């Protein structure tokens, strides 16, 4: 299975390099949005890396060759989830490098080093979008799931702020209050553990659904 | 061993092979006990199906021209001495008959024909 992951990374070496440019752009573009913006930037870059890979695979009809090789379909599915995680790490690294370079060069941009909590939130958001997107991808293939892409794209860029606004209307969403209370009453560490737990749960369920779809897929 | 296959002839390919191998054996080009190419090698060289070569060899074996030893290969059968002799005898008889008929047609006597035969036997 490591073969599969290496293959995907090899395929988008160029895109990863471009990622630095993307990140610089995103950092500049989002500076007014506060710290949430940087979460969005990392999520966005991860998303771009993943989509480029999937688009490329579809272009190459790689399903046909992958399924003619002695690989279990479960490994193909699993490798995409691992890949998403690796792309998250890569995006985070690019982010830190870009931020480091910008602050060292003393450019007048509002940058911000992410703390652990924000990294956890980033991984959480990535798990949410990939957790929803990947099963759709495995069921319908890249081309047909593009509609969902558009939704996610809009979602990321109008982003966290929209969600935050929804959450603040606590009149309807009384459960939101209890969530907020939860956040207030627990330490960052405990919240992080919770988020990680939820992330793993989302990914596990997503994996099982993807597996079911892909096992029954025809080419 | 030279075998030439025609793809356009109406004669089935296996029959062409049988005919040609028989000829080669009777000519003495392939001697007794000499090994023949395997059916697969023959098929590959002639670019034909191995089923064809197998069929040809099976037929030749049935008629006693060749013999297959399991694990070793296919050989020209030693019974061929008799076959070669028989075939040659037949050939000689035919030619002699022709000579006699031709001789008689120009009124040669038996002694004259025998003289000619003696001359040829000593010369060749």
């Amino acid at each position, binding site marked *: 299975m*490591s*073969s*599969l992951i*290496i*293959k995907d990374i*090899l*395929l988008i070496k160029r895109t990863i390099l471009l990622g630095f440019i993307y990140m610089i752009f995103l950092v500049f573009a989002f500076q007014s949005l506060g710290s949430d913006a940087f979460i969005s930037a990392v999520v966005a870059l991860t998303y771009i890396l993943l989509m480029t890979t999937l688009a*490329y695979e579809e272009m*190459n*009809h*790689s399903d*046909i*060759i992958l*399924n*003619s*090789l*002695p*690989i*279990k379909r479960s490994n193909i599915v699993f490798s995409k989830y691992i890949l998403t995680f690796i792309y998250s790490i890569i995006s985070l690294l690019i982010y830190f490098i870009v931020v480091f370079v910008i602050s060292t060069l003393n450019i007048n941009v509002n940058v911000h080093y992410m703390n652990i909590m924000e990294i956890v939130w980033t991984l959480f958001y990535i798990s949410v979008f990939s957790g929803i997107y990947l099963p759709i991808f495995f069921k319908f293939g890249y081309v047909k799931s593009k509609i969902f892409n558009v939704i996610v794209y809009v979602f990321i860029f109008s982003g966290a702020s929209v969600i935050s606004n929804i959450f603040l209307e606590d009149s309807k969403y009384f459960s939101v209050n209890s969530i907020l209370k939860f956040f207030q009453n627990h330490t960052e560490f405990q919240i992080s553990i919770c988020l990680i737990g939820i992330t793993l749960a989302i990914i596990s369920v997503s994996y099982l659904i993807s597996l079911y779809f892909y096992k*029954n897929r*025809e*080419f | 061993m030279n075998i030439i296959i025609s*793809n*356009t*002839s*109406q004669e*089935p*390919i*296996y029959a062409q092979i049988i005919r040609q191998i028989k000829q080669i054996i009777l000519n003495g080009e392939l001697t007794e006990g000499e090994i023949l190419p395997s059916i*697969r*090698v023959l*098929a*590959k060289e002639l*670019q*034909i*199906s*191995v*089923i*064809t070569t197998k*069929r040809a060899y099976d037929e030749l074996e049935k008629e006693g021209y060749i013999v297959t030893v399991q694990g070793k290969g296919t050989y020209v059968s030693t019974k061929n001495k008799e076959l070669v002799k028989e075939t040659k005898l037949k050939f000689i008889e035919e030619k002699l008959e022709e000579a006699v008929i031709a001789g008689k047609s120009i009124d040669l006597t038996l002694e004259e024909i025998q003289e000619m035969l003696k001359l040829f036997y000593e010369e060749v």
Partner: protein
Amino acid sequence: MGTILEVKNLRKDFKDFSLKDISFSVEKGFITGFIGPNGAGKSTTIKLIMNLLKKDNGEIKIFGLDNVKNEVDIKNRIGFVYDENHFYGELTISEMKKIISPLYENWEEDIYNKYLEKFNLPSNKKIKKLSKGMKMKFSLIIALSHQAELFIMDEPTSGLDPIVRSELLDILSYIIQDENKGVFFSTHITSDLDRIADCIVLLNKGEIVLNDTKDDILDDYTIIKGDKKTLQNISDTDFISIKENKFGFEGLIRKEKIFNKFSKQNIVTEKPNLEDIMLYFTGRNLNE
């Protein structure tokens, strides 16, 4: 010898096409040609064998094992060469090999290098820059390097020049010297199979029309060409099918059926090749 691939009553239904309960086998040591016009269902059959499509009914056994239950084990021993060789264009040959070789249990690096050199393929060239012939050879090298026992080829020669096609057939002849290997060669370019195929399966509109040794097929049938008068005097139901033109007709018929019927007629007989067989068997009265 042994059956390497067995297909029994295979069925697959699509909206406007069906593969109808087809059965055939590929024996060890032989090259089985799978022919038929475009749209006959050949690629569908191969996809079903490789479990790229799910069958609606029937059985597919490779090396005696069920093709779905033992999918990975089987694929370890199968070499495939497809029409569109779907290797990643952006990768080089050696990168592609590095990705593929760990997936196979029986990969032999020495064999790979030997063939790479023999076929003269540049290992640092990107796959998208290779000619079609080179891509096909690369597929073959991969198949040979993991010591495949069954070679499944789906239109491997389409788009190739005659020289490369001839090279491919030479390689197949060489492969089949090993009596334990089998080749399943699907194509609509029947001339490739005229010489080297051992068995032929003819598929048309989802059904098997002929399934026999190539020699029997080519020896049992003959093409008859004659004038229109001759056509009037004989029953055309004896013919597999007939092509009429302004000046006469051509038809395919079993050899034994022509005795006595044509002795006094003005006809020409010709030995058919596989393309003729395919044309006549898949078109009823070709000019209707």
